[in-house]
């Protein structure tokens, strides 16, 4: 019994150690991409607006996005993008990204700051 508890404790410790290596981005939001198949739902292909490509999900409101993202209007649809306050807050996405004001989709506030290229 003690051995089982020890094994599970080691397992939990090891998993948390591995978890520390995980990325800030995911297939759902923020991963680099060239194709939709590289993302959970949709790839905004590499461009000056989305340097390196950007995995995202379509949305109707902020409630459809992860907690650190907002729903913005992007061309013909609405997608989730990371919210920010200043340009350094977008550095984790790499070169070309800055904090810019966009139309907030499905919200009364009208505008929101998100990480985006261009």
């Amino acid at each position, binding site marked *: 019994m003690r051995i089982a508890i020890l094994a*599970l404790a080691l397992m939990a410790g090891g998993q948390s150690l591995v978890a520390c290596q995980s990325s800030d981005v995911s297939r759902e939001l923020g*991963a680099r991409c060239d194709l939709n198949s590289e993302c959970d739902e949709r790839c905004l292909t590499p461009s000056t607006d989305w340097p390196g490509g950007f995995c995202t999900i379509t949305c109707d409101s902020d409630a459809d996005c992860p907690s650190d993202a907002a729903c913005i209007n992007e061309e013909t649809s609405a997608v989730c993008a990371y919210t920010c306050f200043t340009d350094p807050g977008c550095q984790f996405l790499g070169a070309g990204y800055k904090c810019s004001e966009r139309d907030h989709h499905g919200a009364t506030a009208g505008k929101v700051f998100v990480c985006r290229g261009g």
Partner: protein
Amino acid sequence: MSRRLSALAIMLAATGVASADEPATPPTDATPTPTPAPDTTPPVTAPTPTTPPAAATTTTTETTSASPEVHSTVAPPDMSDQGMGASVGIVTGGRDTPGGLKIAGHYLYQLSDQDWFDGVAAFTFGGGDAACFRDRMDNFLCDHGLADGNAVEVAANVRRFLGGKGDFWPFLRAGVGLAIVRFGDDDVTGLAIPLHLGGGIRVSVAPAVAVTAHVDLEVGLARFNHTLGLEPQLGASIAAGAEFKL
């Protein structure tokens, strides 16, 4: 090795009794060390003419006639030289380690009084969708869940019994495996070398049948395709099974 030692011990005991009964036997250097010369051996046997030799003889004959009973102190008495078994359980993975339902076949072969080789062929069946992606530094990463992926593994383990009571025999188990790991939705395949360390309990339920339950910690490395490269493997499993004498 220790099997030979036990056999040697039995032989020595037998020769010791024989030398007590027959002082002229050649291996006088084995047991009667205090006897300086063959002439002094009759006085040694003389004071104990009836009772001690009789008791010694009976105990010796018991041990020699029932040699498997020597094993009963360190391993289940119903364990035979060879056995086969099957087990089913769950294994937790995560990230690049597969997890899910684990079905395994076991082949047991006696190595010593308390150690058995435990050869395992195991299949892990997990689920999960694609979970690999490129991070912003363009590193290919996977973030699979606890029960994602599939694996086929062969492993060589050693099971050591720790001494038990009645039908219940706890054991430790350690070994190394070779596995093919696959996350189909990501088209990610790897070759893993996991080390196993765990323990369990064996319970005899019939003369030739026992049930087992065991937990294992799996730690290792795997080499994957794409640009994933070398990744750690970390998992834990819990399983129950049955084994039979061959």
